[in-house]
């Protein structure tokens, strides 16, 4: 299934081609070419600042340094972690974020419009060939658009905001090819939960490049699920080579991609650290058990785990496509007594679109409890936090101990299909069974 390049350097045929991330890094570093392992300094095309690790942590440092921001036009600010304000502290953080935007005249500010990674995608702000940094680990989300976008801490983003530059060790690339079509009830989320197990979650110094006909057939929403969770793989970032689907999404967002946007591709003879191939048709819905995304297996290995809460939310798990997956399972069904289903759509646009197409109606008819858009319970910041010993199945990306609240709570990760099916069953359940049955005919 894999081709691991274990040959010593002197035996390896000299590669002549480059992978897409290598080409983007070379461009951003002002070089003709860069090689894996090299340390380079890159110019940043876009810096994403969120209310969590953004202005509240960066502004005091700018004051201490006595400087402003390097280029307000290259900064995007989004409020999402502390929205809506629920106490004096969160209100103050949001106010500070708005004051920062005014002080430095930052033109692109999305206040309470949704989760930053999703908002960037919705507005066509991440484009092929860009080199971008975000002050949040799931900034890898943007890589779905054929750009190099990685997450960094607020201290490092302070450096970016002051200098417009960041250092990088050029990563090696791991190519992950998927072929074939998913069965009913299977989605990109299942791909990532399987990969967390198969590739492990310590892929530092590597960029994960997703490809194959399965990925080519995916919507941009589903592709961002792949690159978003490259963060869970511990990779530098994830990336998908751009194609017509990418360009169409950027145009639909009202932006015009560069005329040569599709030149950002990996060469056929690019040097990969490993190439993996998987069959989408053979993929079953996956669930990751507490307390690591790598602790995953087919859904039936977790059947009959009772759940107190089913949560559909976060950048990775509450896009329009995710809400539609949940609705496909919930149509004509009810959430089980004793289980609560909570839905926090990833953006205001998702709410508008899911209202227009009836998806939200289906969810609330099934008994879903609607929450405001934002990062919410995924990081124990907003509504939907878990109590001691509670069990949750969640469409989010992390299930570390204490991630969604109490340290003794258990968080299982699954696709929106699996979360919805589990909400109906009151225990972890295989969505394929419900999707193949008429509502009302199931024993529950």
């Amino acid at each position: 299934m894999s081709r691991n390049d274990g040959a010593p350097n002197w035996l390896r045929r000299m590669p002549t081609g480059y992978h897409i991330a290598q080409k983007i890094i070379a461009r951003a570093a002002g070089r003709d070419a860069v090689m894996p392992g090299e340390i380079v300094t890159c110019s940043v095309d876009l810096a994403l600042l969120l209310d969590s690790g953004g202005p509240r942590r960066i502004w005091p440092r700018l004051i201490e340094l006595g400087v402003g921001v390097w280029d307000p036009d290259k900064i995007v600010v989004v409020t999402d972690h502390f929205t809506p304000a629920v106490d004096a502290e969160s209100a103050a953080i949001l106010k500070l974020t708005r004051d920062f935007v005014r002080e430095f005249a930052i033109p692109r500010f999305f206040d309470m419009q949704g989760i930053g990674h999703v908002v960037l995608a919705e507005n066509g702000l991440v484009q092929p060939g860009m080199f971008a940094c975000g002050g949040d680990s799931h900034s890898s989300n943007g890589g779905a658009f054929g750009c190099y976008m990685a997450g960094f801490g607020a201290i490092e983003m302070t450096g970016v905001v002051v200098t417009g530059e960041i250092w990088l060790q050029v990563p090696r690339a791991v190519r992950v090819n998927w072929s074939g079509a998913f069965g009913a009830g299977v989605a990109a989320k299942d791909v990532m939960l399987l990969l967390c197990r198969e590739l492990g979650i310590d892929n530092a110094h590597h960029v994960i490049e997703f490809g194959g006909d399965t990925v080519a057939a995916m919507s941009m929403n589903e592709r961002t699920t792949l690159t978003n969770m490259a963060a869970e793989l511990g990779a530098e970032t994830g990336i998908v080579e751009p194609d017509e689907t990418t360009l169409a999404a950027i145009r639909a967002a009202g932006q015009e991609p560069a005329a040569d946007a599709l030149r950002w591709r990996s060469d056929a003879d690019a040097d990969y650290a490993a190439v993996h191939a998987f069959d989408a048709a053979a993929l079953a819905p996956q669930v990751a058990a507490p307390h690591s995304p790598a602790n995953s297996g087919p859904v039936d290995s977790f059947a009959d785990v009772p759940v107190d809460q089913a949560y559909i939310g976060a950048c990775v798990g509450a896009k329009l496509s995710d809400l539609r997956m949940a609705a496909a399972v919930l149509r004509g069904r009810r959430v089980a007594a004793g289980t609560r289903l909570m839905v926090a759509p990833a953006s205001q646009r998702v709410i508008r679109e899911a209202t227009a197409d009836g998806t939200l109606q289906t969810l609330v008819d099934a008994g879903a409890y609607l929450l405001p858009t934002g990062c919410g319970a995924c990081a124990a910041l907003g509504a939907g936090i878990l109590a001691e010993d509670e069990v949750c199945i969640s469409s989010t990306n992390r299930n570390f101990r204490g991630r969604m609240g109490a340290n003794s709570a258990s968080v299982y990760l699954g696709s929106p299909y699996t979360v919805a099916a589990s909400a109906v069953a009151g225990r972890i359940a295989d969505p394929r069974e419900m999707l193949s049955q008429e509502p009302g005919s199931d024993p529950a």
Partner: protein
Amino acid sequence: MTQIGGAAWVFGDGVDTDVMAPGLYFKASMDVMARHCMEAIDPEFAARIVPGDIVVAGRNFGVGSAREQAPMALQHLGVGAILAESYGRIFYRNALNFGIPTLVFPQAGEIAAGDRLCIDPLAGRIENRTQARTYTVAGLPEHLLAMIAAGGLMPYLKQRIAARGAS
């Protein structure tokens, strides 16, 4: 950067940033946040660590989020250095940016809790005085030495800005 000495606090593989800096305390002061650092896996850690003590861990230390509060909480508690087999990528950069000596230590598994360690981070020398063993590992990354010598990214940025102003 001078030598660092202290007792070893030993952790396993995959210690994530959520247990170092739990989201529940994001809005609280660093004093409060640090009191809950590692609580989910070692409730004694924050109360009992002595400034200068050294965190020793297995693979992928600091996996997870970009939250800089993770290394900040360790630094606030007085952690003198971090030695792990490997690191979560953002945590590693954050820790060095705060000037915390952070070394890749493949033999971390040979250290026992409470061992007295003495470290020269620039030379990559780790002495276990309890076990009377000395290790040599890769020192701090060469391209970051100027930043680390300055004491971290903030003092380094100050130097660069001052140099820019003077030129």
